[in-house]
């Protein structure tokens, strides 16, 4: 992950896999499916975060994560074990997620509503305030182009680096940073009234 203040990042940007991962990859390539378990445990949560950003729906995200792991396993012999497994997996997750979304386009999804269900139960006043905040941020995010929205969420909330996001979305890290800059600017503009009312 990149330097700077903010929440700790869940994925380290190592250019090569650590010894444990390299060994697991080698064993899986030799047909030892049990060794795949280590990779599943290591990358399952980050893969889910990526899938959720694409789909905005918890159960669909779980399905896509499972699909992506199986697709990775089926093609594991084509994988260069000198590289980390995660970025390759995340790219599969994004591709599968986009296909999944197309296939189920008739389903209405609202990522913020779904995500909000995970929260605790606040009091009536706090709930009203929170609803207003959620609506404002939801509107601000919905007004962003999809790539900007995904980039800002993956970077700020999920802790991925620009390079990792670029690998997932098939764009350069510089483009990711540009999208991030644009998204931040847009969100600042749209949320300015919240800062004023809070101040």
């Amino acid at each position: 992950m990149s330097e700077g203040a903010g929440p700790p990042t869940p994925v380290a940007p190592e250019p090569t896999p650590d010894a444990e991962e390299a060994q697991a990859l080698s064993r899986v390539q030799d047909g030892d499916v049990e060794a795949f378990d280590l990779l599943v445990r290591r990358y399952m949560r980050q893969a889910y975060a990526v899938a959720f950003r694409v789909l905005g729906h918890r159960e669909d995200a779980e399905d896509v994560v499972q699909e992506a792991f199986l697709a990775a396993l089926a093609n594991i012999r084509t994988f260069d074990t000198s590289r980390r497994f995660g970025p390759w997996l995340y790219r599969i997750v994004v591709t599968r997620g986009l296909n999944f979304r197309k296939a189920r386009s008739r389903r209405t999804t609202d990522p913020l509503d779904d995500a909000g269900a995970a929260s605790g139960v606040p009091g009536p006043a706090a709930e009203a305030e929170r609803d207003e905040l959620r609506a404002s941020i939801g509107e601000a995010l919905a007004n962003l182009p999809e790539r900007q929205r995904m980039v800002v969420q993956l970077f700020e909330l999920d802790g991925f680096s620009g390079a990792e996001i670029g690998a997932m979305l098939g764009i350069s890290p510089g483009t990711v940073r540009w999208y991030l800059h644009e998204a931040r600017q847009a969100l600042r503009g749209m949320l300015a009234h919240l800062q004023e009312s809070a101040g």
Partner: protein
Amino acid sequence: MTDPAHWSLDRDPPRDSALAGRLRAAGGGAPDSEVDWDRLQSAIMAAAGGSRPGVHGAEREWWDVVVRWRRAAVAASVAAILGAGGMVWRGGPAAEELAISEGTAPESVALARVVADYPDDAVLVSFLDNARADEFTAWGDR
């Protein structure tokens, strides 16, 4: 929030903790607390076991199945051999119990001696083809 001018194409900007806090407070985080990770992991591994790639990435071949079941097959073979041996061993005393006893009625002894000279299946065919109640009765009365 982070200074808007503080960014570069060459390196990631510092994370904007204020913006992240707002997004998170509004429920923008992925709802990973709702996910049953153990169940998801088990589901993935169960599915992975059913779609194991071959050495060359192909689907599973018949010899993969044989290799997988070889221990069970060996155990089943050993059990079958032991079971068959046990049945043979128990069959010995049972045959002796059927041996002709000197205390048996003379007619039965004579019949048994005749029957003993023929194979079992020949005796059975003979009885099934020819035996009628009156014949047995007549033979027995002689």
